[in-house]
């Protein structure tokens, strides 16, 4: 079953074409990593998939529902705001900079959206939120505020916040890039645990070894196009394209 499908997506900022005819699909339980140099368009692709940016052209489909559908000229036509609001509930996003709400306790950060947006029972949500925090090793941090946590702990809270919405697919936008090197490990472990539980995920990352270990499928992007894609073994261990080889050579020590 396809959770996410993007067909022939295009996006430009001014004169700069950031996405040139990108297509990808993500099956249920699949973990897809997107790698590539800065400015390759991978973060823009993620921001378009999570409706933070709008595509100029192409389809964006979650579980068969069109968030955007290409018209006869290929231009993306978006669904109504009400439909988009429903479609939005399919995905969660973990940001590079966490973007926790600083004036909320850890527990409220995790609990508020399910109660407020999904109108779920508060006691139920609280029990689930505590369970998520326990899973993240943060059960004793429920009542503290984000500023009292390390970067790694904050990122785990933001993962819990995304999971509390019970998304069908979870996106990660360079989840360890804002962290000290010694803290990246704890986040990568959380993501590996989620992969072991068959969470469907799309991860934009610069951690090559991690991408190779955790992913079912890897996409290498450069200059707004998909240069190479396939299994981790194909893309990382046996790349066929010169650009992929050149990019990976910088991570040889991994």
């Amino acid at each position, binding site marked *: 079953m396809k959770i996410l499908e993007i067909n022939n997506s295009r996006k430009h900022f001014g004169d700069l074409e950031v996405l040139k005819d990108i297509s990808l699909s993500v099956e249920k339980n699949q973990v897809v990593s997107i790698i590539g140099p800065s400015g390759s368009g991978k973060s823009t692709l993620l921001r378009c998939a999570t*409706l933070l940016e709008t595509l100029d052209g192409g389809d964006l489909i979650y579980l068969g529902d069109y968030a955007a559908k290409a018209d006869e000229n290929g231009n993306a036509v978006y669904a109504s705001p009400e439909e988009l609001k429903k479609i939005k509930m399919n995905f969660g996003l973990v*940001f590079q900079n966490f*973007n926790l*709400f*600083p004036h909320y306790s850890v527990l409220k950060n995790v609990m508020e959206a399910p109660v*407020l*947006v999904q109108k779920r029972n508060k006691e139920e949500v609280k029990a689930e939120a505590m369970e998520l925090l326990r899973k993240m090793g943060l059960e004793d941090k429920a009542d503290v*505020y984000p*500023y009292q946590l390390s970067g790694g702990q904050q990122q785990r809270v933001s993962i819990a916040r995304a999971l509390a*919405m019970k998304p069908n697919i979870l996106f990660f936008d360079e989840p360890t890039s804002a962290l000290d090197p010694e803290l990246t490990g704890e986040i990568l472990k959380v993501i590996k645990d989620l992969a072991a539980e068959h969470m469907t995920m799309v991860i934009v990352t610069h951690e090559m070894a991690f991408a190779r270990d955790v992913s079912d499928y890897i996409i290498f992007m450069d200059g707004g196009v998909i240069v190479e894609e396939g299994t981790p073994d194909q893309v990382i261990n046996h790349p066929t394209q010169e650009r992929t080889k050149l990019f990976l050579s910088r991570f040889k020590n991994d």
Partner: protein
Amino acid sequence: MSLSIMLSQLSVGMVRAVGIFALTLLFSLPLGMLIAFARMSKNAIIKNIARVYISVLRGTPLMLQLLVVYFAPFYLWHANISGYRFAAVIIGFSLNYAAYFAEIYRGGIQSIPQGQYEAAQVLGYSKSQTFFRIVLPQVVKNILPAVTNEVITLVKDTSLAFALAYQEVFTLAKQIAAAQTNFIPFVVAAIFYYVFNVLVAFVMERIESKMDYYR
């Protein structure tokens, strides 16, 4: 004139000064928010109207604005302005302070990182939920020191109602001092303003420390 009579006369003016202070805040704090939104509007006409409003109200003396507000109805429409004095004071002060508060709000709103909006958007918050639950509480905390400054200035600015001969404490002090050739009313007025401001600063500090639970 005995000190107690003097004090009882001045105390009437003190109550009036507090009245100007309270009503000005009551009207200018929300009006400032409206102007701040207009100033940040994507509509160029609305934005420029707000910009000109702020520019004029901040760029001309409050005393002159009070005179304009009070006398304009008479000069423009030959309206009867007797009985309009107090309303003119409140309108003049509120319009002026709203301009300053608008810029404080705008600064506070624009200091909220884009990521806060994006996180709320992905979680499905509506625009108004995002503003009232995520943005506004953080704005209030950020702008409190700047608001305190304005509020303290307002306490002292109430004396400008003198320009419309509204009998608040400063106007009365000046009259009594002139009539009695006595310096004491000015001392009393000075103590009044100072104590008022110490109280304001105390209250604002309490509010600030209440919001100190996060950074």
